[in-house]
């Protein structure tokens, strides 16, 4: 690989620290959003399960 070829692709990499910092912040925010949605989905699933158990009589009570 020639030095000139290596230099020719350098312009593809973002060097603006403001943009790179923003990328880290965006990914951190995306992580929080995913966790929040996962927790919400977990709660909804638990509620659904609890509701379903309440609606189904226990066989020992028959």
């Amino acid at each position, binding site marked *: 690989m020639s030095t000139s*070829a290596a230099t*020719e*692709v350098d*312009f593809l*990499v*973002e060097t603006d620290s403001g943009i790179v910092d923003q990328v*880290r*912040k965006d990914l951190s925010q*995306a*992580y929080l959003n995913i966790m929040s949605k996962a927790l919400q989905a977990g709660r909804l699933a638990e509620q659904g399960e609890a509701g379903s158990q309440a609606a189904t009589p226990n066989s020992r009570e028959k």
Partner: protein
Amino acid sequence: MASPAKMMEVCDDVLVFENVVQKTDPYLHILSPQFYSEPFADTLLAWMENQTDWNLHDSLHYQQYELGFSRFAHCKEIEGLWDGDVLAGIRDRAARAFGVPLSSRINISAHKMVPGQHGYIHTDKIPHETHRVVVTLNRGRPADSGGNLVLLSGPKPADVAVVLKQISNTACGFALDSKSYHAITRVKTATRFTVIYTFLSDAVMDLPNPNFFVAS
């Protein structure tokens, strides 16, 4: 059967993919400053902009519109995309840059991402896929428009190592393994298009998705 000269002409009409450079930080990847010829890049981008037959993939970790080109073999205006000699050129130059042989069996797909969509940090470790080359196509995206391909040294946002600019008709490739963490930041403005070449493993004969093209 087309003459060798005619085949070479098709390849030159479609593909540039020269000066492909190998980088090693945060893991081995390749970069190309120009992937397609300018006329073909413009034709392909216009085709994607006018295409309506996209499938939405919407999950917790990523959202994007996808299409596989094997369904569009009747589209003459972009047939150079899956031309056997063009694919051979891509395979050979990518293999040289990666330093490993690559399969002639290549899946070609496209992704479209609109504002709000993103791909969170992940690796693509799929047994029958070995390497991927991603080509960015657009009509100019500002630096703060989101949708950047990001390479990371690990699974956390703090592991960001390389943020790639979205310069149209440039390409990035990497191996699909447990170390190649990458992400697409949330798109903030305008539509982001990419074309994805996935090299399949020659070791796997019984492919779950047989929709691939074959290089000459």
